[in-house]
């Protein structure tokens, strides 16, 4: 079974930024986790790389992990 988008994000943030998995919840503030706008773009790039997809540019500026996941989820592989 494929991992959920949250699990994938938890793993990515732990590997890339050293953020503990339990801190990465859908309600968690990106700012509180130290994820600025540059880092958000980098994370989107990582997702594109990992799943070999292209996420179109969006005017949405996520402020929480949940909002960030909403951008990514349509492009994640389905079961």
């Amino acid at each position: 079974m494929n991992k959920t988008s949250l699990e994938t994000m938890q793993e990515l943030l732990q590997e890339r930024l050293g953020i503990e998995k339990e801190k990465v919840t859908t309600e968690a503030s990106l700012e509180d986790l130290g994820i600025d706008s540059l880092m958000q773009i980098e994370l989107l790039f990582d997702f594109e790389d990992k799943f070999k997809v292209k996420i179109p540019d969006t005017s949405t500026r996520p402020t929480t992990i949940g909002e960030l996941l909403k951008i990514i989820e349509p492009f994640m592989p389905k079961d």
Partner: protein
Amino acid sequence: MKRRVAITGVGLIDPLGVSMEGFFDRTVRGESSIRHFSTQDIPVPISIPAVFCASFNGDEILGKQRTIVMDRFTQMGVCAAFDAWKNAGFDINDKSHKPDIGVSWGTALGGTRIYEQGLREMWLNGRERLPPVAVVMGMNNACSSHIAIQLGLGNSSLTYTVACSSASAAIGEAYRRIRNGEANVMVAGGSDTPLIYGVIRAWDGMRVLSPGDEATSPNACRPFDKSRSGLVLGEGAAALILEDWDHAIARNAPILAELAGYSSNCDHTNLVKPDPTGQIAAISLALDDAAIKSEDVDYINAHGTATIEGDPSEIEALRTAFGTHAKDLAVSSTKSTHGHLMGASGAIEAVITVLSIKAGVVPPTANLIEVDPACEGVRHIKVDDNKKMNIKSAISNSFAFGGSNSVLVFKAPK
């Protein structure tokens, strides 16, 4: 009246991962940090003597949330700057806005490493784009910017790219900024990481890299010696805290030395061939700026890269600039132990010069056995010589490709 400039802190990356004090002690003993550096890099494996900071791990020191946007030259530079900042009695956790403190940094190559990695990914692995952070990791002013952001420094944050004079120019320009009253404190230094496939191959193509294997690499850099065979590339970083003298006194800071003079000029003759005339002028200008006479200088930390053409040119410049005093002038090239850090070399040599003044010792030119007749006329300091010396004034030379010369004059504090 121009203000005096104190050196109140120093820091560096010890290639062997021990400590700044350990590095300096080894330098004074003439012990080399140069090792055989080999990779199975495609398409042709690398095998050269080099100074590689194998134990340096920016992630461990700075944390991944910082280093994810930092190339290796930035990671090293920030660590060296943090050490100097602490050495000067400042707090690295104090991020309050400091409009009177700035950064002046030198790098010859900047974030070349991240671009080479990117080119490999695109051309060898078919990747279409590079990670977006490559833009801010690769820019030459990345290190200066990160130091300013991490420490809350609101004065100027400038980067100087002047080949092998980069860090010396950065230190000198920082000195001028304080001297002219534009800043009270400056973090100055340099960092470079030239152990990159393309950079190594380019230097190899110039035929100026000294060869060596596992056994011979530690002795591969032999400045001024008859048997010298070229320079040794090294990676690293070093930083100094420059401070207005009265500002340092007021906060009871340790004053390690005074930066009393600086000059910057250009040979304007050839991109790679050094010209003693320009070097002589640079030395004279720096002595004038420091308001000292040539006979007041006790020690020269030479540029001394161990190239066939460069060493005799520098010694000729010293003979002329110092006249009858030249034969008494203690001279050494510490590149014999720490290699050539490219744009950071002026910073690590400035730190060594400051520590030499403080400790009352002169570091030797390691591997100097038989002085090349073309390099005679000064008092070369060899490993077995008496190295104790009360250094009142010392000079650090940096002479770059492109003809840009930078000379720094340090004095014992009083």
